[in-house]
């Protein structure tokens, strides 16, 4: 098997039976590039946060008056059950996909293909569900970066570099980092799902007969390359995601993905009620007698 791909040998090429040079896979050294890159990011980020980083928002600027803050429920709903279940299923299937794809590449040999495509089917179904749920049952635009996010990112960057800039606003429902991560995961996820579903035509499944001639060798080759690139990309993406999820200052976000809510204090500390309004609770005095809690 010929290894070509510029001087870095990023893609494996082979000669098809018709004499055509076709890509077959990515070079699996990219797996290590992705894993080591993710680890380096973790180290640099951990050092940055512990040594240089300043608080993103001043504690004083809560963005809500005391009375308004009192109307915020103690538990601010953030992710409904549907979103949390999707996240759990998607995470489990993604981990299964990564382990079945890459453990054999690092020497742990086992019959991985069937487990891999089953996990891929689970991921695909969950993502289709998520797309419909996001359109119909969620605040669809809340996860997409908006103009204010970009402005605030510029402000934060300037302040981090010691330049004068207005204080960035607090986040809407999701911080910009979350939104960008979601965007990258969406692109990589749709890439592996689309290519993976076609690649199932090359293996034996109960769904349809094998047909490796569905596309030309060249098209199949690039499909494998895209699947591989997105796959090794997920090694870094998932590693960084897990790292962020367990960082102490981010853990309230992780808890909200488990329990569905975040505390009023965290909400007011990190989020702008004008950008992410929540249903205010009715003050106890205004409640009908029957709804009042006993003393």
């Amino acid at each position: 098997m010929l290894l070509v791909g510029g001087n870095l040998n990023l893609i494996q090429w082979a000669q098809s039976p018709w004499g055509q040079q076709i890509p077959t896979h990515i070079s699996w050294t990219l797996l290590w590039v992705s894993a080591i890159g993710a680890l380096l990011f973790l180290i640099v980020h951990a050092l940055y946060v512990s040594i240089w980083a300043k608080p993103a928002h001043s504690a004083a600027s809560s963005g809500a008056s005391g009375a308004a803050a009192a109307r915020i429920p103690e538990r601010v709903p953030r992710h409904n059950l549907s979103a949390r279940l999707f996240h759990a299923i998607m995470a489990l299937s993604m981990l299964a996909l990564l382990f079945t794809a890459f453990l054999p590449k690092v020497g742990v040999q086992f019959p991985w293909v069937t487990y891999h495509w089953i996990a891929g089917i689970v991921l695909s179904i969950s993502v289709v569900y998520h797309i419909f749920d996001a359109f119909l049952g969620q605040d669809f635009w809340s996860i997409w970066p908006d103009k204010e996010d970009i402005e605030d990112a510029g402000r934060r960057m300037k302040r981090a570099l010691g330049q004068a800039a207005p204080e960035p606003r607090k986040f809407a429902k999701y911080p910009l980092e979350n939104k960008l991560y979601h965007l990258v995961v969406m692109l990589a996820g749709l890439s592996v799902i689309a290519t993976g579903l076609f690649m199932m035509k090359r293996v034996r499944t109960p769904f349809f007969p094998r047909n490796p001639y569905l596309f030309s060798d060249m098209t199949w080759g690039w499909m494998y390359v895209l699947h591989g690139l997105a796959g090794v990309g997920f090694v870094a993406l998932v590693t960084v995601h897990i790292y962020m999820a367990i960082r102490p200052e981010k853990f309230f976000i992780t808890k909200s993905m488990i329990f569905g809510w975040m505390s009023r204090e965290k909400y007011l500390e990190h989020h702008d009620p004008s950008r992410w309004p929540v249903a205010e609770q009715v003050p106890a005095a205004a409640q009908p007698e029957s709804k009042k809690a006993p003393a």
Partner: protein
Amino acid sequence: MAVIHDVIPAFELFQPTSVDDALALQARHGAKAWVLAGGLDSFDWFKDRIKRPEVVIDLSQVKELRGVRTTGDGLEIGAMTTLTEVVRHPMIREKFSILPNAAEAAASPQIRNQGTIGGNVSQDARCWYYRGGWPCYRAGGNICYADTPTGLNREHAILDADRCVAVNPSDTAPALIALDAKMVVRTPKGERVVDAENYFIGPGTDITKMTILQPGDLLTSIRIPSTWAGAQFYFEKVRDRAVWDFALVNVAAAMVTSGGTIQRIRLAANGVAAHPVRLTAVEAAVVGKPRNEETAEMAGQLAIRGAQPLQYNGYKVPLLRNLVKRAIRGTAA
């Protein structure tokens, strides 16, 4: 694509005289090194320019890898022992006659004089798409040319296919599995003894390999325990040309009976999957049953359960069924 040339491309040749030296050479050259036993498989690859190793480690001078030794519990056959030596060895013939029968069914006398038992069990697949240098799964690509609507797959797998449908061509492998042989492998970390049935791997586990051997590993010997010494053996190989050919399907059985009832049995077949298949379901089903036509029929049916024939190899299903039937019955149909 495969083009036969007159001269094999140059490589650096090493001829170590001890296993330690061979292992040191393998460690030094890693995946660049090609271990040469009898050369019957290797020289095909070299002449066709499909495999072009930079370094070849020829084991022919390693005396400790040759010959048959008795052990406290059976026999130990050096991996470089030729198939002819296996065929002619009196103790093997006396106690484990299934192995010489299988070895004698391999290839031609000339090839058996040169081919080794270690090479026979470790040989690569004979799928012509793969041997022809096509970029198939087994060659590191992403397609099986044999398992397509137009693929020529008459000799290919009916069991345990996973993307690649090539078969293991060894004749001695199923006999060794039937004898519960142990493969002794020297690795950089020390010696490893593996059951014969676990020495072979399918494409689901590693699509580019036929055995567990990794770069740096060396099969040094094969131990045959006395467990099955003197049992009733059956080996049959069906091939296109009786004089010299690879098996379409072969079957090997070691059986102990008492009063016409099967007490113990080990049964394996090859040519039906990418690895020799031990038919454990058949073994379990026939133990305690009388060795008769009815049991044989049931065993044959059980052996083909799960078979998935390709376009042109459907004949292997009744072939395997009948060979297993004959192995259980013990006489020609």
